């Protein structure tokens, strides 16, 4: 990236006598493309072509024997109409608002934590970071299962609430609360890590300067700290929001019919629903929605922020 561009090219031009003739260095474009070849082939075959296939299928017809009847001659838009009709549109909206609430919760929970680790973590800073990374690298499925175990009707939470006299028969699963809790819990580390990286780079003197210039705590937070760590915040928001909006496991384990998200709906169209064209149209809409977010992100932070 930037370093490679600024740095002089790897081959210094005083080509001394030493390299034996016949062993000429490949030009950059050839060497680069040669090294990229395996990945390029893989992406074309298993990422680009399958995606094009799904876009094509979203314009096809539902088959009776085969799951899809598709021909370039008769493309239809009806699957998109169905995907956005009153049966399915609320599911899109629900996915978005779940993901938005979970993202906000992650910011509110994650920002103070990241700030504390970066500024006050002392010599245990790396240990605290590892404590954030461990859940991030443990199985998402198992962590959601753990919540199912806690939140179910005969689960631990009801047992505890019953024991302290608050009633032991609450319904937690299959509620908005359960799914949003699961998403927040699942993706919180994605928020903390980039925020930490940004806060850690921030010069503490900025905060002191802000106080010296008469800003209060709130004003310092919003006018000095948050603008300074904005790249980390934006990265964290996208890293939480994007997987949350398309999630399948959380609503499947902690939710029910009333809390279905778009991921579950697409899943159903390719399985029990057996309507591939509709499922494809929903996939294309979901992907398009996310790409819009990505390009807004890229235009604001630049593609080096990978």
């Amino acid at each position, binding site marked *: 990236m930037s370093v490679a561009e600024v740095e002089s090219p790897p081959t210094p031009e005083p080509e001394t006598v030493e390299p034996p003739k016949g062993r000429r260095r490949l030009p*950059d474009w050839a060497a680069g493309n040669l090294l990229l070849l395996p990945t390029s082939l893989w992406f074309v075959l298993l990422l680009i072509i399958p995606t094009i*296939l799904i876009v094509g299928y979203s314009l096809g017809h539902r088959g009776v024997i085969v799951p899809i009847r598709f021909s370039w001659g008769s493309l239809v838009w009806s699957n998109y109409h169905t995907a956005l009709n009153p049966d399915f549109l609320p599911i899109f909206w629900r996915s978005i608002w779940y993901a938005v609430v979970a993202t906000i919760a992650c910011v509110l929970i994650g920002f103070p934590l990241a700030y504390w680790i970066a*500024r006050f973590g002392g010599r245990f800073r790396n240990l605290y970071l590892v404590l954030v990374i461990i859940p991030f*690298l443990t199985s998402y499925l198992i962590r959601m299962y753990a919540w199912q175990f806690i939140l179910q009707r005969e689960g631990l939470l009801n047992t505890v609430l019953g024991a302290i006299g608050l009633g032991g028969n609450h319904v937690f699963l299959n509620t908005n609360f359960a799914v949003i809790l699961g998403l927040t819990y699942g993706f919180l580390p994605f928020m903390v890590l980039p925020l930490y990286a940004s806060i850690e780079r921030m010069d503490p003197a900025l905060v002191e300067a802000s106080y010296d210039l008469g800003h209060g705590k709130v004003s310092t937070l919003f006018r000095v700290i948050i603008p300074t760590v904005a790249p980390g915040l934006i990265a964290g928001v996208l890293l939480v929001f994007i997987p949350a909006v398309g999630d399948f496991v959380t609503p499947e384990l902690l939710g029910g019919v009333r809390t279905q998200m778009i991921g579950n709906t697409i*899943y159903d169209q390719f399985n029990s629903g057996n309507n*591939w064209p509709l499922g494809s149209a929903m996939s294309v809409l979901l992907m398009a929605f996310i790409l819009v977010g990505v390009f807004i992100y890229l235009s604001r932070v630049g593609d080096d922020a*990978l």
Partner: protein
Amino acid sequence: MSNKKSSLRPRYLKLHAVLVFAFLFAPIIVLVVFSFNQAKSGTDWTGFSTRWYTALKNNDAALQAFRNTLKVAFIATFISTVIGTLAAFALTRFKFRGRSGYSTLIFISLVMPEIVMAVALTAFFRRGIHVELSLWTVIAAHITFCIAFVVVVVKARLTAFDNRLIEAAADLGATPLQGFLRIVLPLAAPGIAAGAMLAFVISLDDVVITTFTSGPGSTTLPLYIFGQLRFGVSPSINALSTIVLVLALFLLTIGGAYSVRASRRGLGAIDATTLG
């Protein structure tokens, strides 16, 4: 920081941090504790027992799923690490047209929702090229989503890399291949190891894409657990989950120890090169 007017008082922040760590770890700890519960169901503690672990020894389906998971994770990690590392080298060491477009492609593969990649791959395998779903289609799918992680991690390591080291090696008479093998590779090793570890962990955990690309007999452990959950919570799933957690922690420890050692060695190599 010694300023007594530090922005947000650490006392509240510290309390917050303690609560968040409790929130992050409590569910996992609960799960592990109850895997040793005698009772068949519910959350009444009826005594310590390892019966659910011993029962797993005779659970052929779970054992087979476990073997499949390891096979998929090892092969997918190996292939994605090799070709992803080559791509990362290409993207950092050479200048050519289309490079930024390539970065965008990798970014897209990272942000593509799992469910979308899953249905695209199942459509491709079943209707596009008409292959039977098997462990090999699972492996191919896992490689597809692992590559991008490897590229990003290795690239981050190589970007911080001083190109003058290679020039120095060339000046001292090293061929490009020697320069690559003796300078670049050792320095990039921690990044490659981290990328491989990330790929392995992600492969180990995948449910959605595996569901859509596996056929009969190619169930992996997450799929097995996921299938069992449809019959509700059970202590044997707690036990199985605990084993998976311990395995992941074990790998993380090995990976962490290796990358610490390798980065020390890497730094040593820099010193040796700059001095020598």
